């Protein structure tokens, strides 16, 4: 072992000369500022959109929320048809997506063997990766005609007396929107529910199995009650996605401001009216009214999202980043 006299002192002196003074506060400030930006974005979204819709708010008044007349030529802007359309399509789609999505989640976590669960899980995640506009394209040219010929016409012929199946079955309309939305909401519900179910302790299942419960009974007694609030959260998250979904719906719903119970009727949603009419909106007031709808949409989805996250966090804290991806 060679001794280099003075070597330690040399390095110690060098190090003491390289002592950084301001690096830490600067870096801390930088990352703090970045996260402040993210937080400020939410406030900024609300403020800017609110500011842009002031003209509309002043002119339209409360009738904006309560009336069903949308007549840009005569400067009447009432949003009820869009609110109705959004609630109707997103609500129906959510029910369907919950039925299928929670089923998928249970299947993936509790029933499927690993070799099956992995590819199926991946395929469900892939559903979320396909761009909305591609679903729209598929909806127009494949889904709508198929729905018309094989679902709507038979339903109309047999059950046409019911309000849901009245009207003219042409494919483009509420039903197509509901189906497309269901497909798009499904991965959100399925992926988040899967994470929530996976977070239920094994001991819950074992307790039920040890009582002699069947597989389904174990799920029903040991797993679902424990995961309930998380699954509800998954559903609400799916609702937020459905409410905010724009392109695919715009392309298949028909874009007519009518309030109808019929699945065959054309409709309109808040998001799709903004997307569809923005470029035609030549007057200030027209644009501002569309932005007012945007403001409403934003506030509603913010609220829904916040509630959903809180519910999911109670069950599966920290696992929500996957739903950000889904």
């Amino acid at each position, binding site marked *: *072992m*060679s*001794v*280099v*006299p003075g*070597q*330690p*002192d040399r*390095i*110690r002196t*060098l*190090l*003491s000369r*390289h*002592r*950084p003074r301001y690096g830490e506060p600067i870096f801390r400030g930088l990352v703090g500022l970045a996260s402040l930006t993210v937080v400020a974005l939410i406030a900024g979204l609300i403020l800017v959109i609110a500011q842009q819709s002031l003209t509309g708010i002043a002119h339209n008044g409360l009738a904006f929320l309560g009336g069903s007349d949308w007549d840009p030529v005569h400067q009447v802007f009432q949003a009820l048809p869009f609110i109705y359309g959004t609630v109707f399509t997103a609500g129906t789609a959510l029910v369907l997506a919950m039925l299928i999505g929670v089923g998928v989640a249970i299947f993936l976590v509790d029933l499927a063997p690993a070799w099956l669960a992995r590819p199926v899980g991946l395929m469900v995640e892939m559903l979320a990766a396909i761009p909305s506009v591609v679903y729209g394209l598929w909806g127009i040219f494949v889904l709508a005609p198929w729905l018309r010929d094989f679902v709507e016409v038979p339903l109309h012929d047999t059950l046409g007396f019911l309000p849901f199946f009245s009207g003219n079955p042409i494919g483009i309309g509420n039903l197509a929107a509901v189906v497309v939305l269901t497909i798009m909401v499904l991965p959100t519900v399925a992926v988040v529910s899967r994470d929530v179910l996976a977070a239920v302790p094994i001991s819950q299942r074992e307790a039920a199995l040890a009582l002699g419960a069947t597989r389904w009974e174990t799920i029903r007694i040991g797993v679902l009650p424990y995961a309930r609030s998380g699954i509800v959260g998954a559903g609400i998250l799916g609702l937020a996605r459905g409410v905010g979904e724009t392109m695919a719906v715009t392309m298949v719903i028909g874009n007519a401001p009518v309030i109808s119970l019929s699945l065959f009727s054309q409709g309109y949603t808040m998001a799709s009216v903004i997307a569809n009419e923005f470029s035609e909106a030549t007057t200030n007031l027209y644009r501002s009214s569309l932005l007012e709808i945007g403001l409403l949409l934003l506030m509603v989805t913010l609220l829904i999202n916040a509630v959903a996250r809180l519910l999911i966090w109670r069950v599966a804290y920290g696992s929500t980043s996957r739903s950000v991806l889904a």
Partner: protein
Amino acid sequence: MTAMTDGSSSSLPAVAPDALPLSRGLPLGERASAALEHPAVQVEVGSLHAYYGRHRVLRDVTFTARPNAVTAIIGPSGCGKSTLIRCLNRMHEVTPGARVEGEVRLDGSSIYAPGIDPVVIRQRIGMVFQRPNPFPTMSIFDNVVAGLKLAGIRDRQLLDEVAERSLQRAALWDEVRDKLKSPGGALSGGQQQRLCIARAIAVEPEVILMDEPASALDPISTLKIEELMDSLRASYTIVIVTHNMQQASRVSDQTAFLTVGDDGAGYLVEFDDTATIFTNPRQRLTEDYISGRFG
């Protein structure tokens, strides 16, 4: 440079304690003759209390780690050995909610004094952990000189010099000289631990702390690490935590024995020269513990 500082191992008894069956290191008496390469500094711990949140885990610990000597901390699991050693280079406070009261003096001045930058203290007091933890994305070379490079020292020649020297002192040079560019994680556990030691000594600290540095290693690697400690004593003050009493008796000059009190906090039962602790302890608790009669 080779002058013997006052209070170095010279005060140890010259008798080898034959009461220690498994002792296979140097006989205690011969340690004093190991050449002193560089005078080190002493670490004084005074009335030290350590807390995790509201929970006190160390109560009133006082001892002095002699310069150019190995001080072992022993005691049952959970008595606060790791906590104590982490208080010595201000690593304890890295844990959220962790807090220290009392004094730790490095070469006479308090490391907890207001205005003292923990970063500087950690440069002066190096640390080796229980599990080898080389930086995963860095090569062997970069691992060794990480402390210098990340402090902003770029002098290539100096870095080369330091890397070779540190690896040699960590007894790893011959094994890695041809693969300095390969990732540090690709070495065996024992080699990784010596790499971590090389990394710690590359910044030329004055004190080296080791928390059970060999407990995750096989016997051969353990032996290498122990030999290493023995030679490092020539330049550094070393504090080592160990679970293994034979190890403590083999490598250390002084021993601190901690145990858990009724209040759940660890406290110092006895501190003395290793020979005394292992052959002639003053406290009943110590005797019970080293003879294995302790729970």
